[in-house]
């Protein structure tokens, strides 16, 4: 019988009997204190790193094939290798600006185990010769800021951060920085802009790949909170042990937040690449099924920006490559499950509205396009849709992301999957992300759109108010 329980002081986290590489302290009430961290093996990964050459630490991480846990899923050890030799100073920016709809794991890692994050940052700075680390935490996460501030103060006092760390020649500062409410700042170049004190608007890549031209124009490594949280374990146990978990191409574990219409929503530490969506939704160790008396209609497999999946995709493993081939993506570990009571058009509207609100305004196709997508969807939902609106929506979407957009297969209609990623006419993927809910739902539930639109035919045109979001 699997053991599992909600942890009252870590709401959302579900403690089950799976492997725990990064959440093992979550069930402890005082997991965030230095005392508890040290008593449970904390900072031994740093000590182990300091006993080796920096290049050996780098090799260990590269050998572990630790895939970035932020979004792109790029191997951290390879990314670290992109720093141009000798162009010091290098900086480390740690991305804790978690805001993707459906996503939360970094918040728990920061709140429940801030020293683990800090230790990961120190290992990275040591391995790569970084001059300073900036921990950028989402503004709305007051408790995470509080826990990290306290942890940093304690770790400085104990000699883990700052000048001559643990009596060695290794010295580095960690500066806690925090945002002020802007989803786009989660994009790495926008985050760098924000750290420089600017409006958080993405930079064009190339040339602004952070490893080449990043913070203050210097080579910069940008990694996610969860990526950092894995490093102490890898230093303590080695790359080979790490690869014993998960699949060959995606080793280790990942945190997945499953929300929506399941019996037991929660944040789960899951073996990467070997667990399927079906395991996660129906497994006794995980969500235990769709809520009573209902059935699965669709789900968002990887945060608000991911094209949607349907019951046919349930047996895919939680791994980037097969999910990408099936027409979606898995980056942020956020899964939103919807049962048959969900209005597909309304759900799509809510996500599109998010992108319209959060567009930074730099690229015209996104700034204008997301706004029009929202307006058209709003009028369809309000019962004032026009027969041409479905095609109009797809046309606007095509201006942001031209050509076939990634979408799941629809076997009943004889339609194949279109693999990830989409094309884009914009600098960053925010605009193209707004297209995902639209194409996913139109392909699958065109009838729901048409039902809403034909109802509007009953209203005389002259009497139909034009709905504009103020």
């Amino acid at each position: 019988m699997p053991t599992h329980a909600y942890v009252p002081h870590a709401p959302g986290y579900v403690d089950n009997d799976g492997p725990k590489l990064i959440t093992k302290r979550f069930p402890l009430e005082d997991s965030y204190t230095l005392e508890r961290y040290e008593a449970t093996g904390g900072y031994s990964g740093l000590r182990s790193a300091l006993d080796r050459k920096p290049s050996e630490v780098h090799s260990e991480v590269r050998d572990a094939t630790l895939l970035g846990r932020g979004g792109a899923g790029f191997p951290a050890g390879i990314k670290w290798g992109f720093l141009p030799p000798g162009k010091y100073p290098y900086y480390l920016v740690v991305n804790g600006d978690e805001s993707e709809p459906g996503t939360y794991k970094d918040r728990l890692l920061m709140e429940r185990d801030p020293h683990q994050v800090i230790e990961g940052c120190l290992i990275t700075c040591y391995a790569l010769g970084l001059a300073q680390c900036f921990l950028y935490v989402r503004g709305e996460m007051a408790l995470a800021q509080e826990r990290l501030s306290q942890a940093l103060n304690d770790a400085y006092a104990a000699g883990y951060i700052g000048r001559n760390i643990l009596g060695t020649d290794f010295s580095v500062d960690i500066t806690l920085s925090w945002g002020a409410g802007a989803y786009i700042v989660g994009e790495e170049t926008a985050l760098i802009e924000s750290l420089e004190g600017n409006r958080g608007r993405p930079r064009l890549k190339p040339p602004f790949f952070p490893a080449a031209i990043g913070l203050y124009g210097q080579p910069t490594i940008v990694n996610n909170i969860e990526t950092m949280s894995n490093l102490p374990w890898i230093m303590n146990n080695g790359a080979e042990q790490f690869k014993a978990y998960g699949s060959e191409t995606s080793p280790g574990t990942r945190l997945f937040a499953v929300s929506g219409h399941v019996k037991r929503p929660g944040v789960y530490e899951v073996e990467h690449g070997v667990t399927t969506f079906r395991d996660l939704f129906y497994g006794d160790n995980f969500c235990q099924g769709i809520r009573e008396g209902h059935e699965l209609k669709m789900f968002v497999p990887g945060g608000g920006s991911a094209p949607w999946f349907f019951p046919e995709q349930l047996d895919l493993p939680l791994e980037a490559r097969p999910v990408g081939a099936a027409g979606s993506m898995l980056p942020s570990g956020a899964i939103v499950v919807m049962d048959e009571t969900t209005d597909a058009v309304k759900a799509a509207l809510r996500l599109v509205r998010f992108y319209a609100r959060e567009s930074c305004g730099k690229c015209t196709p996104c700034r204008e396009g997301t706004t029009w997508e929202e307006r058209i969807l709003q009028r369809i939902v309000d019962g004032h849709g026009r027969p041409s609106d479905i095609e109009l929506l797809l046309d606007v979407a095509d201006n942001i992301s031209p050509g076939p957009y990634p979408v799941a297969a629809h076997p009943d209609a004889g339609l194949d999957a279109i693999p990830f990623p989409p094309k884009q006419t914009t600098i960053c993927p925010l605009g193209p992300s707004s297209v995902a809910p639209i194409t996913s739902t139109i392909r699958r539930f065109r009838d729901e759109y048409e039902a809403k639109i034909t109802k509007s035919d009953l209203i005389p045109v002259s009497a139909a108010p034009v709905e504009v979001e103020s």
Partner: protein
Amino acid sequence: MSRFTPDNEAIAREIISRYPLPKSALIPLMHLAQEQDGWVTEDAMRHIAELTGTTPAEVRGTGTFYEMFKFHPVGKYVINICSNIACQLLGAENLLEHAEKKLGVKVGGTTADGLFTLEDVECIAACTEAPALQVNYRYRLRVTVEDFDQLIDDIRNGNARDIPEHGTLSLVRQSIPADRMAGIVPPEQAGEVPVWMSRNDAGEQN
């Protein structure tokens, strides 16, 4: 409604000292101003510009991008109800509608007594605990309409002590003792190889 107090100015200088370039402190300093006054005033923006060697226009230019910064007075308690997808699926719209009625204001409005401002916000990273809200960025999870009424009563009666007044985020500040600081490396200090990297060249480890 003012410039930083002497105490806060000292904190501001300490924050600036942790960045290679002072402009990087704009966002933390606007948070500090908001903590002091509840919103970001004109005078505060001027003071921030002086401290960071920028112009008040640059400060405002950065600040207006970020929705947590308020450039006009708001309620002492800002209630952010998440209506994004996971919360929407589990009743956020009802909750929002109920909140409007309970408080007698529309989304974006502030109650006449200046106590509450109501906002309809994007995902606040509590999706499994939907519907979720924050009051001055402190979470309330799986909120029913009854819970909401109780919350409002508690705040009105002074029984929500875990919630600081609007503007205060972290109750703990980072503070680095001068003798522990490794030292900021400005970007123009090019070519300096960090000392421990010479270990890579050493034939043997120490």
